[in-house]
């Protein structure tokens, strides 16, 4: 019969409409879903509305989520070298970065004038960065990682969007907190929780003692 298709369509729309309210009743009409309800609503069992009411609630991003990179520095309460960069300014990230938005200034030793393996400055133009994650993937020292903090709005787009070393640096602890399992895997590959250099130095010391 002519028109049945439309009615069937309307029926589906109605079902969706009702489902939304069924969901609301189930969770007690809370404006912002209680935390336990969230994985159900935003998962494969979700039936009702899929809306997430940003900024009152946000979906936590998974561990592998990639946003603008940040540099790992030693924890500020590290016994040997607090706040020391993990980066050795090897330049691989700058080389592999597809839009070429990383600029590294390599440090020199003031006495000998020879290059030191740590960056004096490290700039990333986050307007250009395409969040591809290649820098984090190929850094041999696990010193640059992709961040999870995507709320970057700012009032000035000329100066604010070129991040310098100070802005980029974050404690190692932070990386452990945003990506625990990934950090653990990397530590396993390195052979310990510490930076490669520290681990090497330790191994050397232990050898010397023997």
């Amino acid at each position, binding site marked *: 019969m002519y028109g049945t298709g439309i009615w069937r369509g309307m029926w589906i729309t109605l079902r969706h409409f009702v489902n939304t309210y069924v969901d609301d009743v189930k969770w007690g009409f809370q404006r912002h879903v209680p935390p336990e309800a969230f*994985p159900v609503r935003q998962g*494969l069992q979700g039936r009702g509305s899929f809306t997430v009411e940003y900024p009152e609630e946000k*979906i936590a991003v998974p561990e592998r989520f990639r946003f603008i990179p940040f540099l790992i520095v030693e924890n500020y309460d590290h016994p040997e070298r607090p706040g020391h960069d993990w980066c050795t300014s090897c330049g691989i990230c700058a080389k592999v970065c597809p839009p070429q938005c990383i600029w590294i200034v390599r440090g020199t030793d003031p006495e000998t004038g020879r290059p030191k393996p740590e960056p004096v400055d490290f700039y990333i133009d986050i307007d250009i960065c395409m969040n591809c994650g290649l820098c984090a993937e190929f850094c041999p020292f696990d010193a640059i990682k992709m961040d999870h903090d995507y709320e970057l709005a700012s009032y000035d787009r000329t100066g604010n969007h070129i991040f310098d070393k100070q802005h980029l640096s974050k404690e190692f602890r932070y990386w452990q907190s945003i990506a625990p399992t990934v950090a653990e895997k990397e530590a396993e590959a390195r052979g310990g929780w510490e930076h490669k250099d520290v681990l090497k130095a330790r191994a050397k010391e232990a050898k010397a003692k023997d």
Partner: protein
Amino acid sequence: MGPQHPSTHGVFRMMVKLNGETIERLEPVMGYLHRNHEKIGERNTFIQNMPFTDRLDYLTSLSNNFGYAMGVEKLMSLGARYNPPTRRAEVIRVLMAELTRLVSHFWSVGFLMNDIGAFFTPMMYAVEERELVLDFFEATTGSRMMCNYLRFGGVANDLPERLRSEANLINDRVRDFSTMDYVWEMIFERLPRAVDQFDEYLTTNEIVTNRCIGVGTLTREEAIDYSAAGPVLRASGVPYDVRRAEPYSIYPELEFDVAVRYHGDVYDRYLVRLDEMRQSLRILQQVYPLLKATEGEAFFSGRGGMYSPRVPAGESYGRVENPKGELGYYVVSDGGQNPWRYHVRAPSFINLTALERMCLGHKVADVVAILGSIDIVLGEVDR
């Protein structure tokens, strides 16, 4: 007509000569989104092009990666030291490519409805399912749309054990699912149901049939002459699918039918997409046991941390059946770090050339529906 708002199909303009309401001539004007993709590709090293291919057809970044990875792998296989992708990698690649196809077809059917005036309700139902697939992509690859996931010789990362997140910002809500359960639930329960619902919702709808049947017809010969590909070609009665014509990856092992329809109008293109979604689900259901069987195997055959793979001089053409049609990458290398020439055969661009043929004699309102049925993504058309 146009340039239209980017949230519809992209910035695209048509020069239309009208006689009253009837189209007499139509000329697509492209290039508003030109980004110099191919020239940048020649500056980049091989691996650096991978994230750029995401930005071609931004709805199907994983299968774009797939085509490019295949093109370069073919080239690498001419050289001395080359390890083909591992089995696990191939299985994951096909899983991702088929999920991408589902996502893209959901999107395109939704947008077709948008174009014929069912404003946003059907599309939102489609996007709901897409959301869940993208959650899976995000947890696996790190990004919802710009996945940058494939590498030469495998994939960048194995599937995670759990799709979990850590609260980090204020008001963050945490989710934690087991990946395999999530995938199972998705491909055996949720997505088939969604496709059926779509079918029930739209296929017999009188408004849809009135607007779509007999509109924008492209005959078999014309489709071949315009070298159309994908659903546009298959809706015109040519059962041509790269997955069958030149099987790649693990497709020869998988059972699926090439969806084909014979009228070549907007409605048939819609039906072909629905059929393809069903076939994709069929493939996914066969891939799932393979995924289980290869669990824990290596997902990458090359050396880790290799940012400049050695690519011998030569040329190759890697092609995949993208949701929009045949996507091909022509890569020429002179043995150096970057491709010497890099060209993309973009399916939406080539399908778009047939637009005038389909529109002649129809009304202005039909042009929008026809454009929707070709399913273009301007990121790929203009490159």
